[in-house]
């Protein structure tokens, strides 16, 4: 009897071929949604490489999950780059010159040397370092299509100049040694005017006076040569950290602002320097003061999620051409200047 049962099972197993194929496109939408619900976003992205129709299907059925991605950050460092959205999504691309079998990923041509590294979670890829820029641009183009245009794209770079990508709204670059202004400018070629740019480090030479970096809405520089930045900056907010500006440079800038020669759009300026002399600066700048009993308080919120700085002052400057009033607070280590009435998100005034 047992033998018969065994024989029956053997025959059954020979006749029935366990399913290894499923036409997902033929299944009801409810079932498709349930299937895609079992995948992480990295896996869904990889699934979308199968065909355009499949990509549209994923986008239409899983749109609610894709919309959860508000900000995508491209992080560049030596020999690799990653694409991440907090804990929801992360891809890492490692540079490698051998064992790269082109796989026609991210909508790129079959010859593009970029491959999936067979990690189970579909988050690791390898690419040919010599083709880094074109590969990242291809990947970014696909990511933009996949997640949609409303996502906020930003770049962070450490000791590596990033690839110039389209539609980037925020960049934070830790400059590698011996970077030239031309190399830095090239990073902004596809997204010239951004909302926020942070630069840390030294350039071999000064930026050109017409550099697009000066047109950034909020520029934050650290260990950077700022005398030129003060002259050419055209945006609204400027923060200079670890500078070696002296009293003369500050006086020169403040007087130039008063006479409308510089920084006409400026709303907030913060300078961190060393050994500034408030009395000397104020003496050389024609300023006004509120009644000794009055002073004004304002809060400056850093654009990159830093703390809010609260400052009080009774000293102010008046721009000759339009009577614009800028409150000024100087300590031995800082200069804060804020245009009165700039009640936007980053600055609020309170009368006391």
């Amino acid at each position: 009897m047992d033998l018969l049962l065994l024989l029956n099972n053997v025959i059954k197993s020979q006749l029935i071929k366990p399913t290894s194929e499923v036409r997902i496109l033929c299944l009801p939408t409810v079932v498709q949604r349930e299937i895609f619900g079992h995948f992480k976003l990295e896996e869904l992205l990889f699934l979308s490489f199968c065909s355009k129709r499949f990509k549209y299907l994923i986008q239409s059925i899983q749109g609610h999950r894709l919309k959860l991605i508000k900000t995508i950050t491209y992080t560049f460092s030596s020999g690799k780059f990653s694409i991440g959205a907090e804990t929801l999504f992360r891809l890492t691309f490692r540079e490698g010159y051998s064992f790269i079998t082109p796989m026609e990923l991210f909508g790129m041509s079959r010859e593009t040397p970029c491959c999936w590294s067979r990690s189970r979670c579909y988050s690791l890829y390898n690419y040919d370092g010599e083709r880094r820029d074109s590969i990242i641009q291809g990947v970014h183009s696909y990511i933009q299509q996949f997640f949609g245009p409303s996502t906020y794209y930003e770049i962070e770079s450490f000791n590596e100049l990033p690839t110039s990508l389209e539609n980037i709204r925020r960049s934070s670059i830790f400059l590698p040694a011996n970077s030239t202004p031309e190399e830095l400018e090239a990073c902004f070629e596809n997204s010239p005017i951004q909302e926020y740019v942070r630069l840390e480090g030294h350039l071999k030479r000064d930026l050109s006076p017409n550099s697009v970096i000066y047109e950034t809405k909020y520029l934050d520089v650290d260990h950077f040569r700022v005398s030129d930045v003060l002259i050419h900056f055209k945006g609204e907010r400027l923060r200079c950290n670890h500078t070696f500006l002296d009293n003369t440079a500050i006086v020169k800038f403040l007087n130039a602002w008063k006479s409308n020669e510089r920084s006409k759009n400026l709303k907030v300026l913060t300078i961190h320097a060393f050994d500034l002399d408030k009395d000397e600066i104020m003496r050389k700048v024609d300023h006004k003061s509120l009644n000794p009993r009055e002073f004004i308080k304002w809060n400056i919120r850093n654009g990159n999620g830093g703390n809010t700085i609260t400052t009080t002052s009774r000293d102010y400057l008046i721009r000759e051409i339009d009577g614009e009033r800028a409150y000024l607070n100087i300590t031995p280590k800082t200069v804060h200047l804020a245009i009165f009435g700039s009640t936007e998100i980053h600055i609020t005034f309170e009368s006391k």
Partner: protein
Amino acid sequence: MTSPASSSEVKYLIESSEGNTFDVSGAALRQSNTFNAMFLNIGADGPIPFTDYNEATLKKVFEYCEHSVNEENYSGPKHQDDLSKWDLNFFNEMDQKMFIDVINASNFLDIERLTSYCCERIARMLRGKNTQEMIKVITLPTAEELEAKQKVEEKKAAAAKKVAEKAAETAEKTETLEELPVQQLVQTTRNKLTRKYLSFSNE
């Protein structure tokens, strides 16, 4: 044979597309939300017709339901490593057609556990594969197949257009034939009236 009851002892008769009937326990059947919505409270006189699905598919679906009757605290599909011999056999005994039929039947009967179980199985079939391997699993048409399909559709559209044109032509001809006697009648009447008027005016 069938009655509205909540006892798991009660058996219901199910009718398949072939017209065959077979027994399913009430406990197993109650995993189907469709059944619950349609028959649970009012009962069913005679076999319950699930005639969109064949007997083999329905038996497979209820085999799962009978098996999972005791899994009260079901918390989603199991991890790959936790699959029991029964789980493996359940899927290995199905070919592609039956697997799809089971998913569709499960979806129609709204058996959440089984649908989720099958979907997890599909996800597992895709995981760890590269694009080409995935395309094989989901059997996406190749570029050549798509081209051939498009050509067939174009031919079909052209043929349909021809048929439509012919039909329109025929209809036009029929209209003309139908209209001809009327026009002739109108013309004849008009001629007669003209002649009458002329003779009247001459008088």
